[in-house]
């Protein structure tokens, strides 16, 4: 009987590893489950992971989307616009990616698609000035929610992380206590996400994660390690490139998809 148990634990640890949970956290989760000496190992494991992922966090009206290049910030912002509009919210969008080619045109198209008014910083202009002007504009008054896009960046680039910190400080000045930062994370990313979160945490203290591209084979398991270490909840998941492809995160649904 113990023989088959050991094999089960080995297979489940392998599943966690293949999902990018990482060797350290996978090992910790499996040991904690083993300690409980459960009859149904899989259910005990699922419950353990659901517990790690069940986190509450603030919901502020001004939301700044940050993250690594190509993670899905602009697209997720566009999808969230669609969701809020269909909930009858009054929205405003601010674009601060003044660096990448056609970043302004891409965001503008999402705003036009979803019928949301916007202020987008001109290419080459200062991102912090863009958010300052956007937040102080007349159109930004009397809305329920303001979504702010930022340029992709690597946590390893000190100047760009300082730029992001400045964008947050300016936002906090104009809208004190109304700002939260959402980290947009690609589900296919590996253990480097831990380093990323370490740096992004110091720079802008994200209060939530949007886990994108879960419509592929990647399972985004590093988000479990992030939840365990930083207690930051996953708020939404991206499951495609269309307007409707953004869903509120459900720990149980996610765990069920990890261990079918």
């Amino acid at each position, binding site marked *: 009987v113990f023989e088959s148990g050991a094999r089960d634990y080995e297979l489940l640890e392998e599943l966690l590893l293949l999902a990018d949970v990482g060797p350290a956290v996978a090992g910790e989760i499996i040991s904690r489950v083993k300690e409980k000496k459960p009859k149904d190992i899989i259910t005990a494991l699922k419950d353990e992971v659901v517990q790690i992922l069940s986190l509450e966090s603030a919901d502020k009206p001004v939301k700044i989307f940050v993250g690594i290049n190509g993670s899905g910030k602009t697209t997720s912002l566009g999808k969230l616009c669609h969701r809020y509009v269909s909930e009858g919210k009054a929205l405003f969008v601010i674009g601060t990616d003044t660096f990448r080619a056609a970043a302004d045109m891409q965001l503008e198209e999402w705003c036009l698609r979803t019928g949301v008014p916007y202020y987008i910083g001109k290419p080459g202009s200062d991102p912090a000035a863009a958010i300052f002007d956007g937040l102080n504009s007349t159109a930004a008054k009397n809305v329920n929610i303001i979504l702010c896009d930022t340029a992709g960046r690597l946590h390893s680039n000190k100047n760009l992380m300082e730029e992001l910190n400045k964008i947050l400080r300016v936002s906090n000045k104009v809208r004190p206590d109304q700002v939260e930062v959402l980290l947009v994370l690609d589900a*296919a990313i590996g253990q480097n996400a831990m380093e990323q979160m370490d740096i992004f945490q110091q720079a802008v203290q994200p209060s939530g994660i949007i886990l994108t591209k879960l419509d*592929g084979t990647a399972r985004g398991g590093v988000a479990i390690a992030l939840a365990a270490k930083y207690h930051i909840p996953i708020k939404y998941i991206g499951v495609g490139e269309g307007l409707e492809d953004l869903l509120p995160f459900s720990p149980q649904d996610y765990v069920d998809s990890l261990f079918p």
Partner: protein
Amino acid sequence: GLSQRLQGIIGKLRGRGHLSEADIKDALKEIKLALLEADVNYKVVKDFVATLQQRCQGSEIMNSLTPGQQVIKIVRDELTNLLGKDADTLSFSKGQSTFMLVGLQGSGKTTTTVKLARMLKTKGKKPLVISLDTYRPAAIDQLAIAAEAAGIPCYRPPGTTPVELAKKALAWAEDSEHDIVFFDTAGRMHLDDALMEELQKLKELIKPAEIILVLDAMTGQDAVNIAEGFADRGLVDSFILTKLDSDTRGGAALSVRAVTGKPIKYIGLGEKTEELEQFHPDRMASQILG
């Protein structure tokens, strides 16, 4: 990094002058852990460690006076060998060569298309870039704007579907002076049958000299699934790893190479068009080992 960790384990055995089976086992365990932390695929790690085990039974290790250093050297050599040979360039055909850049959403295809064109322009070639991405908002504009900033000609064919655009573009390019044509394609999941079939159709039409899979170097365990998904359909001849300017260990490099045998040719080291370099297996091996 791994070197220090292995020195630590094997260094403790200095008094003995030879390694036992148990010592080798400990060293291999440490190597396995380091590779998993570096995002090398779990199954690739298992195979790699099995190969190492064979080599570590040999007299080079068992009789060595510095077994720790020997083990590290073997790991580094095996890793470098697996990662492929140095300085592999694009495969040009006579006359006009066409290339397709493919890969998952957001991996860096559009940016890399312009980087490759710029690199070849400095080598005296006359590259042309064309976007076939009719899906992503402002994708075609993105390529056009980035190409213009780099002084690279970009042709924007009329049409509303990738196949339509490709046909028009091929006809136009045929009469042009361009010896190299790069086709930027829309990001897609290897799981998306319709989009993968569209890519196969584009391949039949374009008959590229090479299909380059552009992959984010920070990709974790999924790198193997991506590589196999494209390779199984004949949709990858080589790789470019992007965003290696991050501090990622880049184990995905070993995974895709081990699973497809296709070469990694270039690496992206930033967002600027000059930030593209040759892939060096020995440097990558050091990066993976950490």
